[in-house]
């Protein structure tokens, strides 16, 4: 039964189909076969299902389920909160009406206060060439990287803590479950509940990145690109050109710019090279004899030039380097 049917589509083609490596032409061939008889479709998809079942034994890890559960309960909480907030708002509206009513009747001509939060004075902080550290009205600590602007009110409102940021900033947010901390930037907004994270969102670069170190944050694209909740060690990347918001694992090494050092945790040579590339604007080329399996953990102090940093790296990792223009060649020490 099966052997006959399947031989019409040769083995290699089906293997390619299972591995999702078919070209358009090959897909057409398969589709044509599927059109010919119902059994063909049934058998191919049955095979496909078993193929993937065999591979999926490790897909549903405990961790993945936990994360999914967290995400689900956040959604459910929001559902419940929405219902609660609508109820709360309705109550206030009712009182406002009574309030206004009373004053009009008594004719005292008071100013009617708006019920929404009156915006306080905004403080804008701009850095040019250095990292600036500051403390917000609630005790949250922020470090601003070069060319970054942060705007925040003198006093946070009753219900939330809103700030606006352009550039790159590192936040250590004071925990307050009643008042979510929301960072708005050009491309995305991040909603926090007491946590440590890094946010880079610039008008000039098409990629905005929120990296989470501790706690939990919710990242939302400002133009309906979607929303993601991050766990520590993850980062959300929003590509303004493709309008896609994705989650990736964080690279170690970058987020300690506010301490003027790089922090590496089990980083391989690729990660270290990438970090240096990003920080010094150079291109690093690795020779094939470099040990790519070894990982390193430690702190590397930031220096003014990449050459100085490489000299420090040489103390720990057996490499030789050669700088040609903005390219750096790294090879194994003989």
């Amino acid at each position, binding site marked *: 039964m099966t052997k006959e049917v399947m031989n019409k589509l040769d083995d290699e083609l089906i293997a390619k189909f299972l591995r999702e490596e078919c070209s358009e032409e090959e897909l057409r061939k398969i589709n044509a076969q599927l059109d010919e008889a119902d059994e063909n479709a049934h058998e191919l*998809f049955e095979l496909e299902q078993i193929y993937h079942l065999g*591979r999926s034994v490790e897909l549903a890890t405990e961790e993945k389920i936990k994360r999914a*559960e967290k995400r689900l309960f956040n959604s459910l909480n929001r559902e419940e909160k929405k219902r609660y907030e609508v109820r709360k708002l309705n109550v206030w509206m009712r009182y406002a009406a009574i309030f206004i009513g009373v004053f009009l009747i008594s004719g005292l001509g008071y100013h009617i206060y708006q019920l929404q939060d009156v915006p306080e004075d905004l403080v804008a902080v701009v850095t040019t060439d250095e990292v600036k550290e500051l403390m917000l009205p609630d005790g949250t600590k922020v470090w601003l990287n070069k060319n970054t602007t942060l705007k925040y009110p003198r006093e946070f409102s009753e219900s939330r803590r809103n700030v606006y940021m352009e550039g790159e900033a590192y936040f250590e947010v004071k925990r307050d479950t009643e008042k979510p901390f929301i960072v708005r930037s050009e491309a995305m907004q991040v909603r926090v509940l007491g946590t440590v994270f890094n946010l880079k969102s610039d008008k000039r670069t098409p990629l905005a990145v929120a990296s989470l170190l501790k706690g939990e944050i919710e990242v939302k694209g400002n133009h309906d690109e979607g929303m993601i909740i991050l766990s520590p060690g993850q980062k959300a990347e929003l590509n303004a050109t493709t309008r896609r918001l994705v989650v990736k694992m964080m690279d170690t090494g970058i987020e300690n710019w506010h301490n003027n050092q790089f922090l590496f945790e089990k980083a391989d040579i690729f990660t270290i090279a990438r970090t240096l590339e990003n920080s010094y604007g150079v291109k690093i080329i690795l020779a094939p004899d470099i040990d790519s399996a070894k990982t390193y953990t430690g702190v590397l102090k930031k220096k003014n030039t990449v050459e100085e940093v490489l000299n420090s790296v040489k103390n720990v990792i057996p490499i030789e380097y050669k700088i040609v223009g903005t390219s750096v060649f790294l090879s194994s020490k003989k």
Partner: protein
Amino acid sequence: MQAGSNAGQYNNGIMSENLDHIYKLLFHKYYANLLFYATRIVGEEEAEDVVQDVFVELWRRKDTVQMGEQIQAFLYRAVYTRALNVLKHRDVKSSYEAVLAEIHKKRIEFYQPDSNDVVKRIEDRELRKRLAEAINELPDKCKMVFKLSYLHDMKNKDIAETMGISLRTVEAHMYKALKILRGKLEYLLLMLALFLLG
């Protein structure tokens, strides 16, 4: 599932704590399998959203949905319906995507949740365990080669390079692995073996 026995007695006040507990248990029991099911139909990227939506929907309807033996059918059907919707609304931007969409349409027919076999296979933990065991019982080098190919999608030549062996040795190991697996798992792996030799 014990939930079944309580299904008939509804009284929100007393039941609500139990309902939350049951809801959590359902999530743990079905999430991974529903995710697999959704992934087969709409692909990895959109599968999680589909399953999350279904569980949110289940929560919204927790007072009206019967948490009995039929809950499995409800969940799979809910995922199926949403997945069908996702496919319907996908933009087809090239001729490649067009033929892919044709195949997706046929595939989702196969994945109709009322078809017993499809869901049974996913819910059958024994099946997956047997597959995993059989693979792990392969002789060492053979197992490594097979796992790199099957679980990590590596090409034979990349496996050869990574393991520092010749391409021919890799192919020999693959052939050996499939022969052994075929013997162990008869029908199911017979189908797999025939088509993985490429």
